């Protein structure tokens, strides 16, 4: 069930929030062993929360998510509820405060059904870098769900929750959404507060919804968006009602098709599905225009310098002093070194080393500054494109979900899985992935729609029009 459907059913009295939560908990216990989508399932507390939600409903409460179970990626702090980032170093970390997004969900009456698995500290594209088990793809459990929000995407696809939150630094919402056949939205940088999101790369990180439908995506975006005094990078701009544009005609809307995204390395079945989707959008009145984003091929290189540099600085706080794991050493330095050795996984170590190197004296200009300059060029590509078009349409990923273990020994190949999503974070623009077909192996394909900064309305409107004229989002994985 979607948010829209469950809210309707609760309002009509067809289902109680307790039944809904119990059904989902039962579903989780049925498939979790295969999928490992969760780090922690909130089995007990959820049932208490749901009773309180029912009380409020009886008193005429009309909040948007009253009694609706939602999963939250385990790098978003939930007060009093363990938040691990799928890392041994935070295995027992219980946040003393609530993130702004979950505070807003709480105020809307949501039920926290559990915290979902991720690549450790959101570093990865397959959810295989978790210290607490590998999440698998509900469409084919020999494959990865994508990452780093793989747990959230798998949980939504497999009906283990009504919807979920993820976070996206280089594609971590959109790529798993594409691999799992669900809707994933990365809002404009600054649209949603990052307060309480455990920092990975602060100039790129953004929280967003992973849902079964475009409507649900708009509903959640309405709730989590907005300025927050606790996040000085959140934008002080009004938040529109994102559901109000759904259903508007897309006639005459110009959609840019960047030729660089249809080059070598694009899987032919993915290409086919995306081209058909463009035709479908055309038949709905949209006007496809070929455009160029000439610096696309540099995005992965820029990203892996900037993101690792920021990460090396952000993760310096895991030193065994204030929270998390501590391994005793012969002196303070030894304690730091041993704590981080024992607490962090291989990919996180690799990125800390790379980022420290890129920022180290003598290399800063060659790596970090150069990457920031190319980031400017990538941003300018988007600025130029948006002078001519209203939105940009691309494949979300170059291939469908790959096999578990396929890329774990080759970090560079893993990084290239994000080639179509990364430039969106670098430019700070919003992007959504929606289901647009299946391969002959019955694996979902994702269509990425990119908008201007703070124009989530445009990409939601186009996504909704496409979704309403197709049936991809109604297909369920054979679990």
């Amino acid at each position, binding site marked *: 069930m979607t948010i829209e459907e469950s809210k309707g059913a609760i309002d009509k009295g067809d289902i109680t929030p307790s039944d809904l939560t119990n059904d989902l908990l039962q579903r989780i216990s049925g498939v979790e062993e295969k999928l490992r989508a969760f780090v922690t399932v909130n089995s007990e507390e959820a049932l208490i929360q749901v009773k309180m939600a029912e009380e409020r409903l009886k008193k005429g409460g009309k909040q948007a998510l009253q009694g609706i179970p939602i999963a939250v990626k385990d790098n978003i702090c939930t007060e009093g509820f363990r938040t691990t980032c799928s890392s041994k170093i935070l295995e*027992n970390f219980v946040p003393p405060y609530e993130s702004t997004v979950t505070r807003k969900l709480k105020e809307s009456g949501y039920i926290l059904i559990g915290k979902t698995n991720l690549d450790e500290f959101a570093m990865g594209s397959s959810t295989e870098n978790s210290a607490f088990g590998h999440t698998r793809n509900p469409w084919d459990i020999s494959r990865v769900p994508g990452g780093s929000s793989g747990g959230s995407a798998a949980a939504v696809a497999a009906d283990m929750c009504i919807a979920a939150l993820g976070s996206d630094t280089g594609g971590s919402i959109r790529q798993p959404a594409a691999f799992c056949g669900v809707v994933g939205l990365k809002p404009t*940088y600054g649209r949603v507060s990052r307060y309480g999101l455990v920092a990975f790369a602060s100039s790129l990180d953004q929280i967003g919804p992973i849902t079964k439908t475009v409507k649900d995506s708009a509903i959640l975006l309405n709730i989590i968006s907005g300025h927050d005094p606790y996040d*000085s*990078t959140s934008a002080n701009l009004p938040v529109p009602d994102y559901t109000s544009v759904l259903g508007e005609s897309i006639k005459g809307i110009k959609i840019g098709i960047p030729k660089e995204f249809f080059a070598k390395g694009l899987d032919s079945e993915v290409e086919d599905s995306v081209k058909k989707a463009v035709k479908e959008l055309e038949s709905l009145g949209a006007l496809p225009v070929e455009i160029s984003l000439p610096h696309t091929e540099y995005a992965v*290189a820029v990203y*892996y310098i900037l993101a690792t540099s920021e990460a090396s600085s952000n993760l310096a706080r895991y030193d065994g002093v*204030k929270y998390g794991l501590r391994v005793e050493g012969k002196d303070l330095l030894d304690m730091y070194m041993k704590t981080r050795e024992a607490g962090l996984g*291989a990919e996180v170590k690799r990125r800390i080393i790379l980022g420290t190197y890129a920022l180290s004296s003598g290399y800063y200009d060659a790596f970090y500054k150069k990457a920031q300059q*190319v980031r400017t*060029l990538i941003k300018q590509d988007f600025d130029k494109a948006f002078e001519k078009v209203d939105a940009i349409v691309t494949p979300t990923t170059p291939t469908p979900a790959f096999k578990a273990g396929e890329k774990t020994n080759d970090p560079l190949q893993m990084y290239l899985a994000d080639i179509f999503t990364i430039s969106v974070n670098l430019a700070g623009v919003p992007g959504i992935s929606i289901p647009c077909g299946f391969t002959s192996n019955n694996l979902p394909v994702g269509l990425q729609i990119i908008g201007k900064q703070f124009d989530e309305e445009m990409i939601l409107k186009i996504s909704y029009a496409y979704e309403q004229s197709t049936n991809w989002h109604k297909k369920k994985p054979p679990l």
Partner: protein
Amino acid sequence: MNIDDVSLLSRLKLSDTEKELFAGQLSKIIEYTEKLNELDTSGVEPTAHILPMNNVFREDKLRNSLPPDKALNNAPDREGFFYKVPKIIE
């Protein structure tokens, strides 16, 4: 890259196996990032922040903050309202 230097700078101990593995993998990644040198970026402003936003100030007023006991709740070792660490001064 001198992996021992960077390991110390990172305050991150690496095993010999990790050092060998990372050295190979990271040199491949660094080689890949060198493609940025194909681009002439002279005169291009670096982007550190993507929104046209400057310093954000608030009034210098006392606000509520976490009570110390709560803030220290996750400390691996503490004494009263202090974090406890190995001896620093000889």
